[in-house]
């Protein structure tokens, strides 16, 4: 157990000190914030050209912009998780950096377990930065009142549970993100090169979109189908649209996919963690 904690503290140190990790956090924050700021700029230009004003279009509201900004940031987060976690280990093995921890009474199982834990922490910290970026920018540029259209209340934030659905969809994104984190660690132990690990990982991320017809109703069983940005069954995408006032963006049948989505990432989560540990046990370093 001591070996695991030492390995974990080492990984945490790397998470704090690595410039790529630091820049990626800044990057996802900026993408989310700038996306919202860009949306405000675009709406302002359209309004100046004679299009709808703040009291006419749902898009002028804080809530849909917060949702859309978050989703925009999550595109980068999902790629970043894969790049940082799947691409890291093969590079470290090639450089020989991995040998030192293994010579410090840290078993391979303890080492991979520590990396798996980082595989859970990193997606959450990146996600947090996206939420902060989107929330901060949306609060600066938009008002958080009810969703208006033509001077009428189209959606009440409280009565129509707009905020509730948005928060729920953001929570819904956590299981597939955690599964993606562990899946990326698994890929890092399975392949010799970072390019192969990231390439295969990217293939799995894009599979639900590319194989939509083949997967059909089984798509939510592939955890990447539910990713908040790149997943075709993104709950966040639906709720952001719903918050913008497009009432048909939240069909009732989607509820079934949402319900399923709370459960389906967990088999992938446990399998990826187990395979990551098992595959690294015999890997030449």
């Amino acid at each position, binding site marked *: 157990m001591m070996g695991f904690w030492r*390995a974990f503290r080492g990984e945490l140190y*790397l998470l704090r000190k*690595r410039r790529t990790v630091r820049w990626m956090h800044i990057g996802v924050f900026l993408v989310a914030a700038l996306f919202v700021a860009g949306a405000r700029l675009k709406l302002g230009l359209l309004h100046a050209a004679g299009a709808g004003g703040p009291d006419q279009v749902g898009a002028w509201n804080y809530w849909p912009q917060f949702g859309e900004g978050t989703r925009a940031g999550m595109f980068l987060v999902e790629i970043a998780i894969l790049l940082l976690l799947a691409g890291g280990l093969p590079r470290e093995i090639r450089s020989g950096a991995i040998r*030192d921890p*293994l*010579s*410090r009474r*840290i078993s391979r199982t303890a080492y991979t377990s520590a990396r798996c834990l980082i595989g859970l922490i990193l997606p959450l910290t990146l996600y947090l930065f996206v939420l902060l970026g989107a929330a901060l920018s949306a609060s600066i540029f938009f008002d958080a009142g009810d969703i208006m259209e033509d001077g009428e209340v189209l959606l009440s934030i409280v009565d129509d549970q707009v905020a509730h659905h948005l928060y729920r969809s953001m929570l819904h994104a956590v299981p597939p993100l955690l599964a993606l984190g562990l899946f990326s660690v698994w890929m890092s132990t399975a392949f010799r090169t970072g390019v192969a690990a990231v390439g295969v990982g990217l293939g799995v991320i894009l599979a639900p979109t590319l194989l939509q017809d083949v997967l059909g109703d089984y798509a939510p069983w592939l955890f990447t189908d539910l990713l908040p940005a790149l997943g075709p069954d993104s709950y966040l995408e639906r709720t952001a649209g719903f918050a913008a006032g497009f009432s048909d963006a939240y069909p009732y049948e989607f509820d079934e996919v949402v319900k399923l989505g709370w459960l389906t990432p967990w088999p992938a989560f446990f399998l990826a963690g187990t395979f990551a540990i098992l595959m690294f046990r015999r890997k030449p370093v």
Partner: protein
Amino acid sequence: MSETPAVVVSGLKVQLGGKPILKGVHMEVLPGDLFGLLGRNGAGKTTAMRSLLGYLPYQGGTCSMFGVSSKEVHKIKQPYGVALDPPGMDDTLTLRQNLEVAMIRGGIQGGRGVEDVLDLVGLKHRQHNRGDRLSHGQGRRAAVARALLGNPQLLVLDEPLSGLDPEGVERMLQLFRELSQEQGVTVVLSSHHLREVEHVCNRVGMIEDGITLLEGETDALLTAAGDGLLIRAKHEDRVREVLASLEGVDGAPRSVDGQLQVRIDASFDTAAALVQLVEHGAGVEEYARQRAGLVDVFHQALEGMEAVQ
């Protein structure tokens, strides 16, 4: 001090991709030894070290450190340091950060800290350089610095002298000597620089083509190898004739770098031989009796192996 070996490698066999790399490597290192694992490039030194450290699975024989099998290195209680080639620096971190993360992972509380090891290897001025900004030699020294963190009782160093300038080689050898002789640290280092290590290693093992040619006390091996005679002359054929007629000459002379080298034993009369060479008009320009070095020992061992084959 206990005489239980710190390192034991016996009949080590390793295959990589179905190809036999090690076919029988032996090594026994006692506590406090400064052991040199010597051999040419590609002889199998690095593979042997990686197997010893548990990084490479082996198909035959045994490897252990402090009595613990290399297959269970995480069970070793005694602290040990490792410096392999490549040095294993994380290029995304500075040298100092590399050492700090090693301290954390090692749970190192006492002994040498980051400042101490940077001082010892002379890299304090490079501590804020990233791994990829270090030269090859600095990378080797950085790897040694990391191995020295804490209070290791055993150091396993793969080619620690590779890429170092003469001053760096001298500094490292002096450091290893002090660690071994004054602090009782067991040092196992691999090298193909036989001349440099023969003055510091008290024991050596020589491997060639994945097989241990010989192993033993350095002094004993050098004594057994006998002395050598170096002759530079205008007429090599006359030198060969004279040497063939003399007592105490062991084998035929070898021509190396424009001079003849021949092994001689204790019965060889150096002065009388010189007189004969002059009398026979060999045109002697240089004449020296030298103690055999590890290079000679290595060549003898190679010749012995080839003769057996």
